[in-house]
């Protein structure tokens, strides 16, 4: 899936995979922080899969 995203021209940094045990709450927090930071950084760079509302007369 990640390969195909990249193949289509999406930044692979938009999709993250992680193994987190239910006991690893701190790891979950760390990963969530890291993912949001990375995706937010990309947001300014590329705007893709964005739909604009159709203009109604």
């Amino acid at each position, binding site marked *: *899936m990640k390969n*195909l*995203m990249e*193949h*289509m*021209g999406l*930044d692979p940094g938009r999709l993250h*995979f992680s193994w987190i045990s239910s006991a690893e709450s701190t790891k979950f927090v760390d990963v969530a922080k890291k993912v949001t930071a990375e995706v937010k950084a990309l947001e300014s760079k590329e705007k893709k899969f964005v*739909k604009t509302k159709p203009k109604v007369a």
Partner: protein
Amino acid sequence: MTTYSDKIKEISKRLLKEGKVDLVIGFRKGSVPLMNQPMFAKNEGDVDSFVWDSNCGINLANYVTDRSEKIGIVAKGCDSRNLVVHIIENKIKRDQLHIIGVPCKAMVDRHKIAAMMPGEIESIEENEADGTLTVTGSGFSETLNKAGVLQENCALCMHRNPVLYDELIAEEVTEQNPEEVDQYAAVREVENMAPEEKWAYFDSLFSECIRCYACRNACPLCYCPTCFVDESKPQWVGKSVDPADVRTFHFLRAYHCAGRCTDCGACVRSCPVGINVRALTKKLEKDCLENFDWKSGLTLDKRPPLDTFRPDDPEEFIK
């Protein structure tokens, strides 16, 4: 191809007469040139409409999904591979099928031929002896070399002979030499592009899409009772031709075929506007081969890669 057609008729008649099958699925001439239609023959009289020529590109495995009868089915290489996928995925039982194997001599690309002609095509004649096709329409008649107008997937095909069959209608054809055919040249071309170029490439590829879902309906893998694009609670993807919706549809449909697609080309053939849907599925095929050493539809004994776990599966993307 008259020998092929005659043999198919002969075998189908015999199967129906002996009551070995309830119906035979094959091709008949289409209502428009270059597009042969699937046909279900339920009695001996129907059988005479069966034909075989270079326009039988639709995948007949599509029509056996969840059927309960005993079915005779005409299958070229890719159809037989999709029958294997169907059996693996429990969409049909092996003993329900009597597979009439057709060693395939490749199908022609209707989009390519239509683009080469100055007007609307009215008929196409095939001369098997010298490998040419004569295409006629109002005010023109042109002779083409069949080898030059093959469907791209047929030109790359490594399994022209059926992989699974009960009887063959002719001697097996010689398979292409894998050394000589570069399977993934087109995929690599896209892989080597910069991300923005890739995005633009697929944008222009899908720009013509009218969301008719012909590719999905022609695809033997797309047998979900309700496709994700048709669901409304929740609605996964918009039903418009907004580029974001179109791309979501093609991206996800392709991904659903990962490790299952046999590159039969039915999606491309059925597309009314000639989109090369295989641009996505071929990439998945390449990934499956590289990551899991997997080619779909070749054996009944192995489970597909997305269905199994192996300790040595690649996992460098998991952090």
